[in-house]
């Protein structure tokens, strides 16, 4: 294939070759490769450009903490492009296409790189200090340029073609991370029989075991130990293993969100497979075995392609069988890089030198190095890296005791491996607000006080050897079980040939070059240099939080995994304060960036949110209704005949209803059954109206206020029997009203013997309105008398209609003779069709919400939420009559006596008739005194409802108007952009003011 693969190394499947493209060029890798490993195997290091300076960048890690090698990916076809994917995580599959980002015209030649030349100008926070003059340039010149040069990849441009899923999972123990400590914990717990879930973000279990050169575990090669362990774990029915699954957030009460990638590694995913799934795992106990992340070193040119974490090179070698270069220099302040050097040397990489800033390193390591002919440079440093798109040479220097550096020349190499020590991964632990304590000896933050039932094991506790990690994993499992009152048998896993090590932490590598001239990167992606951090401190950013925000250190897509600790050390150095006094910025979810789709899960398109439909809705759909959304319901708005628009349809529906009869699906009205000996007393307390004297078989309009005295809801309430009421509410108010009633009943009036049951969906409600309404119903009443005498306005009865058990109300929301038939929901459509057939004999129409609105407005009936808005009292709405004058109290009564409620200048509900009868005012239009043209205007109120009234042959409107009742008969103006309309203030009843038609 090429000369960067190392025979006999790696866990890739050499039998399966995979082709993919990068920037249009086709490459080959093996199954099991990531984009980064496959490109490296092809000798490609240059994979991206940085955010600000457009510096050429290659992968610096081999994992999800990668800040540099971010690419766009797609499997082709529409809606499958994704920006900012970490090449070090994305597995290759046949047909994968990838592109580099943040470059123009090409990755190799990027014009944006001029920024790098101007870097001195672009110091941290520079944009806060300039781009202010001339002021007018901001919108047109500066900001567009700033915006265009920011951002990394490009946004997807098409709707996502994939689906996403979610799952809840409950378990005794969740283990995050399947390195040695996680595996040991899983073995221990699984053997003891508890339910265990083990998650790891990689495709394979093993964590660092996959990357380190083989040790012997329990007398077997690490590789076969791992294979056996994985097999054992997979065999436990009480253990669930999830790979490619990242614990993204640790939420309240041991709930951990785990984002599982399902198809992004497959060439041909199953058709109905979701792309990703969000697991919401609730665990009794959690073990965080996330390991530790290797820290970069900070020195001039540390961002050049070919400069890489030592452990990453080791991973590329041992896991992917790729050597990242032929000639490497290793620069380190920690023992672990020595081992990486040995692994690479053993694989044939020429290690030109190990440069260690420390004065002494164990004799054992030195001997191992000498054995491999590696030149050892203790108390040395790398002062700069040469080579632009790939390391070509590094300058070394000898560090004297006083920190002075004397150059000793350059070394040629194509790779520079660095290691600044290890940072325990405590991201998830920090999500719980668990405290961190500073381990002064090792200069790391370790877990302190816990707020959740969690246990940290392995690298996360600063333990560095496999043996220690295994032991700690066992221990953590035992602790977790113990806190559940269970015990687990001890398990010992013996490691032979273990590597232990230690190191020191440097803020910046020593150098004699001007601190402010060095290009020593701390946050690679955001191009934050050590200089930026020092400058920020000098500018008064004394808090690490200010430093972060001023420099953007740690705000890139790796969220500080690479940069936080180095940033902290440099800031502490500049501040002259110890690191723990400076503190860390807060880790927040998600652990790694997570697709929106995964959070949204199934909630997409029709399943985004419930759409409620009545039993009659299907008829409306079949008969050409136009719908509108009303709270969660969809309701038929009007029923256009061929060629009719909304206005034509509504005019016709109004005409037919007033002239003969119209039928309306009112099923969405809320319904509450109020039952018990104290039912009437309960309603007395809730509603403004009196209920005690309402006779069974009769109904009454009810008005509900909030405790603040403002109208919340209304509806007709019928007394079925002494102890049973049928309460109706507005469509949108149903749930709210029931909640409010339950609240009062349960928390204030538990002495009352009354119970509430929602019956909204028990009943389909069909409203018949118009002079011929009775004629439609009568044939189906089995002889029951519907005459005005026997069944007057506001009567109700339980009966059968068309053979269906029914509750029949004689009520009207149109001012016409009206009936509302309630039948069990599943029969709604059947009855509707029966009545529809009958209606054909009487020129009956069906109408929707729009006609309902017009007809009720002609009668001055309010719609709560349209003619009222949460600031309207019953008096304001002209509903004083609905207040039971003799009642000592009801919800909201006291508030009506507050000073502001008594002002005559309150806004009151009135009618408006425009001077020009053809002008239909816009709902929401504002009202001013006649003739007032000032701006800002003194607004007197607004139009709440406005329609063309087909019945009256003119427009009508309702309005909330300051001192409206007093203004009856006067003129006001409605200034619109194009023209001011004049109107006369009237009462709200425009049609049949004496209410005769209702009693027909």
């Amino acid at each position, binding site marked *: 294939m090429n000369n960067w693969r190392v025979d006999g190394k790696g866990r890739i499947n050499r039998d399966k070759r995979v082709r993919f493209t990068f920037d249009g060029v086709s490459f080959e890798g093996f199954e099991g490769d990531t984009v980064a490993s496959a490109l490296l195997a092809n000798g490609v290091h240059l994979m991206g450009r940085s955010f600000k300076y457009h510096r050429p960048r290659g992968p610096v890690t081999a994992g999800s903490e990668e800040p540099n090698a971010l690419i766009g990916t797609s499997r082709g076809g529409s809606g499958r492009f994704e920006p900012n994917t970490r090449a070090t995580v994305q597995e290759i599959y046949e047909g994968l296409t990838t592109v580099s980002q943040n470059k123009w015209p090409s990755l190799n030649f990027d014009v944006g790189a001029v920024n790098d030349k101007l870097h001195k100008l672009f110091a941290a926070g520079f944009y806060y200090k300039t781009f202010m003059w001339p002021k007018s340039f901001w919108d047109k010149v500066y900001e567009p340029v700033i915006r265009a040069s920011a951002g990394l990849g490009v946004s997807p441009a098409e709707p996502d073609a994939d*689906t996403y*899923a*979610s*799952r*809840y*999972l*409950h378990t005794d123990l969740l283990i995050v991370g399947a390195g040695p400590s996680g595996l040991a914990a899983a073995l221990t717990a699984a053997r003891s029989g508890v339910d265990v879930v083990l998650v790891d973000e990689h495709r394979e279990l093993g964590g660092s075991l996959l990357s380190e050169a083989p040790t012997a575990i329990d007398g077997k090669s690490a590789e076969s130990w791992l294979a056996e362990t994985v097999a054992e774990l997979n065999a436990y029915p009480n253990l669930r293993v999830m790979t490619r699954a990242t614990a993204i957030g640790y939420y309240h009460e041991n709930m951990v969100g785990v984002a599982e990638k*399902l*198809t992004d590694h497959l060439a041909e*995913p*199953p*058709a*109905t*497979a*979701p792309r990703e799934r969000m697991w*919401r795992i*609730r665990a009794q106990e959690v073990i965080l075995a996330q390991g530790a992340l290797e820290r970069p070193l900070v020195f001039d040119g540390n961002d050049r392609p070919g400069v890489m974490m030592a452990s990453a090179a080791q991973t590329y070698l041992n896991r992917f069988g790729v050597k990242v270069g032929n000639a490497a220099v290793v620069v380190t302040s920690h023992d672990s890089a020595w081992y990486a050097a040995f692994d690479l040397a053993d694989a044939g990489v020429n290690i030109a030198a190990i440069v260690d800033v420390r004065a002494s390193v164990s004799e054992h390591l030195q001997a191992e190095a000498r054995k491999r002919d590696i030149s050892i440079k203790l108390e040395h440093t790398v002062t700069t890296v040469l080579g632009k798109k790939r390391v070509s040479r590094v300058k070394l220097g000898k560090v004297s005791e006083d920190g002075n550096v004397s150059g000793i020349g350059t070394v040629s190499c194509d790779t520079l491996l660095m290691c600044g020590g290890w940072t325990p991964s405590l991201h998830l632990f920090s999500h719980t607000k668990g405290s961190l304590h500073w381990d002064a000896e090792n200069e790391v933050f370790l877990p302190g006080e816990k707020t959740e039932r969690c246990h940290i094991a392995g690298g996360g506790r600063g333990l560095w050897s496999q043996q220690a990690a295994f032991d700690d994993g066992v221990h953590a499992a035992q602790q977790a079980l113990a806190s559940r009152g269970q015990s687990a048998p001890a398990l010992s896993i013996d490691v032979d040939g273990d590597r232990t090590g230690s190191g020191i932490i440097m803020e910046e590598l020593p150098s004699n070059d001007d601190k402010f001239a060095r290009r020593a990167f701390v946050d690679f992606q955001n191009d934050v240099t050590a200089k930026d951090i020092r400058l920020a401190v000098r500018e008064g950013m004394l808090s690490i939080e200010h430093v972060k925000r001023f420099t953007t250190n740690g705000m890139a897509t790796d969220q500080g995994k690479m940069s936080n600790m180095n940033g902290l050390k440099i800031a502490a150095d500049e501040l002259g304060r110890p690191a723990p006094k400076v503190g860390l910025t807060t880790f927040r979810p998600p652990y790694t960036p997570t697709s929106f789709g995964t959070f949204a899960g*199934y909630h997409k398109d*029709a*399943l985004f*949110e*419930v*759409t*409620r*439909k*009545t*039993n009659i809705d299907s008829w409306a759909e079949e008969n050409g209704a136009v719908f509108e959304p009303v709270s969660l*319901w969809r309701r038929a708005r009007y029923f256009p005949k061929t060629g009719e628009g909304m206005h034509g349809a509504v005019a016709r529906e109004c005409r037919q209803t007033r002239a003969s009869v119209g039928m309306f699906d009112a099923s969405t009205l809320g319904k509450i*059954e109020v*039952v*018990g*000996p104290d039912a009437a007393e309960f309603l007395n307390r809730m509603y403004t109206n009196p209920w005690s004297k309402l006779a069974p078989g009769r109904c009454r309009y009810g008005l509900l206020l909030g405790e603040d005295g403002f109208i919340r809801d209304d509806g007709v309430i019928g007394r079925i029997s002494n*102890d049973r009421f049928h309460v109706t509410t507005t469509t949108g108010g149903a749930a709210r009203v029931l909640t409010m009633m339950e609240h009062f009943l349960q928390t204030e009036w538990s002495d009352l*013997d*009354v*119970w509430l*049951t*929602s*019956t*909204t*969906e*028990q*009943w389909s409600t069909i409203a018949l309105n118009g002079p011929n309404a009775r004629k439609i119903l009568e044939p189906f009443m089995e002889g029951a008398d519907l005459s005005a005498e026997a069944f007057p306005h506001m009567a109700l009865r339980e009966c059968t209609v068309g053979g269906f058990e029914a509750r029949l109300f004689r009520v009207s929301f149109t001012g016409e003779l009206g009936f509302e038939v309630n039948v*069990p*929901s*599943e*029969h709604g459509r059947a009855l509707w069709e029966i009545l529809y057939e009958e209606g054909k004999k009487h020129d009956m129409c069906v109408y929707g919400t729009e006609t309902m609105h017009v007809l009720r407005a002609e009668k001055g009936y309010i719609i709560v939420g349209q003619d009222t808005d949460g600031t309207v009292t019953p008096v304001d709405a002209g509903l004083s009559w609905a207040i039971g004058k003799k009642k000592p109290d009801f919800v909201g009564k006291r508030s009506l006596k507050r000073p502001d409620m008594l002002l005559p200048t309150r806004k009151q509900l009135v009618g408006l008739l425009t001077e020009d009868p053809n002008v239909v005012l816009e709902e929401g239009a504002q009202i001013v005194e006649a003739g007032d043209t000032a701006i800002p205007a003194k607004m007197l109120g607004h139009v709440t409802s406005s329609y063309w009234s087909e019945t009256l042959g003119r427009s009508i409107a309702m309005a909330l108007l300051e001192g409206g009742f007093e203004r009856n008969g006067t003129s006001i103006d409605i200034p619109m952009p194009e023209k001011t309309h004049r109107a006369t203030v009237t009462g709200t009843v425009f049609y049949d003011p004496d209410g005769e038609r209702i009693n027909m």
Partner: protein
Amino acid sequence: MTFTTTVETLPTMGRYNLRCKRENTVALSKSLGFDLPSSIGEAARSGTQSALKLGPDEWLLTCPMEERATIRQSLTDVYPEAVHSLTDISSREISIRVSGDQAEELLSTSCPRNLAKLSTGCGVRTIFDSVQVVLMREGDRQFRLDVWRSFAPHVLGLLAVACAEFESGL
């Protein structure tokens, strides 16, 4: 594992919401002919009738449609001594049955409760996605969901998508 779990909508059944104070449960149990369960989540059965306790003063009574009148009559008779609320909600809800090996896991796509804790024969009111449901475990691998009628398509829609997901094997 091949996916064999099924989702079906059941025919209408008789359903009452029964409410009363604790001191009246004895009288009501007597007229019903079986003891109302006393812990939330528990169900009691007698022949074709059953009562599931949903809240401290609330039971869901179920029966075949044609037996509704019997229940209503016997409870109406006892009302003067033992006041209560009996409300017919037969049509309010639709019942969905999920049965098969992966029934529990299928439901866990949208149900935040720990379903393993729900024993056979028990039932609770809970939430499925954003929808309130009464969830009963009819058997080891069989559940029934009672869902308000207009919410049922959403629940069924989610279950259908979940079935497709399970069928994909991923």
